[in-house]
């Protein structure tokens, strides 16, 4: 049994849901992200937020998987602050949806001034509504700088408790910075970039298992929606106790996400498709 706390199922097939359910996935959380192209209007985000809060939970339920989500405009579309603020203005009306856990995945992409302005606008929204926060850290050569800028930015919002903020996509050069400041950290298991399952288990062995989780971040690019059970296999291969495997792939995400008051990983009977829709 496991939770995938970061996966973009709107980009994945029904076969992926089948494989995840068979591998033991009982619950997922899906942050709002970049579609691979820039939306042409805020209305495009309104429709996307409806997909995340209405249709995708129904699709997941057909496979016995509980679906939760996070809302934002992602940093790749934050370079136009006027556009981004129009999207952020749409978010409050969706916060009452029962599967919305918080604000995410916000953060930085190329570490620009405009991206930082919109990151801070999201942090203000989370602070005002006392919401959990899921943070994307930049890719590759931009990750270390971006992670440090993000950690400093969050510090400027004293009402945001680091224990309610997860910094995602950490690697060996960023995990300690995140954990030392009291935040949670997520490791993304990707075939080429970010962490392999082997390196993710190395990080757990090096930095401990207290405030850490693993996710697939499966999306429309080269990614693996059953990466988390592969990491479970890697832990068992090394002889880790089953209690530790369960802690980092179920207990830890359940503990962090339950702070929202809306997260559930209780067994869900697969539902029939709604043929009226």
């Amino acid at each position, binding site marked *: 049994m496991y939770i995938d706390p970061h996966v973009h199922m709107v980009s994945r097939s029904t076969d992926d849901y089948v494989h995840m359910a068979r591998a033991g996935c009982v619950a997922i959380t899906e942050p709002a992200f970049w579609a691979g192209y820039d939306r042409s209007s805020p209305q495009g985000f309104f429709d996307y937020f409806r997909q995340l809060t209405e249709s995708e939970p129904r699709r997941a339920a057909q496979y016995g998987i509980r679906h939760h989500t996070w809302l934002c405009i992602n940093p790749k579309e934050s370079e136009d602050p006027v556009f981004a603020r129009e999207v952020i203005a749409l978010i409050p009306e969706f916060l009452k949806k029962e599967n919305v856990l918080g604000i995410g995945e916000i953060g930085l992409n190329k570490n*620009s001034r405009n991206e930082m302005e919109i990151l801070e606008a999201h942090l203000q929204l989370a602070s005002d509504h006392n919401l959990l926060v899921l943070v994307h850290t930049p*890719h590759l050569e931009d990750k270390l*700088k971006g992670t*440090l800028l993000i950690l400093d930015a969050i510090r400027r919002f004293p009402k945001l408790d680091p224990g309610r903020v997860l910094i995602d996509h950490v690697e060996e050069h960023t995990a300690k910075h995140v954990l030392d400041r009291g935040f949670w950290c997520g490791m993304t298991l990707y075939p080429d970039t970010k962490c392999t399952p082997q390196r993710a288990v190395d990080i757990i062995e090096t930095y*401990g298992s207290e405030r850490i989780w693993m996710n697939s971040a499966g999306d429309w690019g080269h990614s693996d929606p059953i990466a988390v059970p592969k990491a479970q296999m890697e832990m068992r291969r090394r002889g880790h106790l089953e209690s530790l495997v369960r802690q980092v792939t179920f207990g830890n995400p359940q503990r962090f996400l339950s702070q929202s008051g809306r997260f559930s990983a209780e067994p869900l009977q697969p539902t029939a498709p709604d043929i009226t829709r």
Partner: protein
Amino acid sequence: MSEATPNLNHPSMTRAQVVDAYFMEHRARLLDVAAFLDRIDRAGSGTDDFRMNAYRGAIALLLDGKPERTRRILELLSDPSTTPIAAAHVKGATGAHNPIGKVH
């Protein structure tokens, strides 16, 4: 083969067991690195760009005998600046910091 000191989160594998478990897959990855460098050589004349300069620097870190190679290689490949850039003109990343100026 020597025995490793057990790690709190890694209680059961000895140094020999780690080698037994992982040698073959990392032998294959080592050959992939070598084949990649050979492929570049066969591609003809020219000079390495900033990515390959960083790559060769990272290989040197593998052999310096110091610990935390992964962290140090990732830091070597990272942008060392500390302030936001004026504007983002591209969305992607190249995998290595370009010390003579970015395209964005």
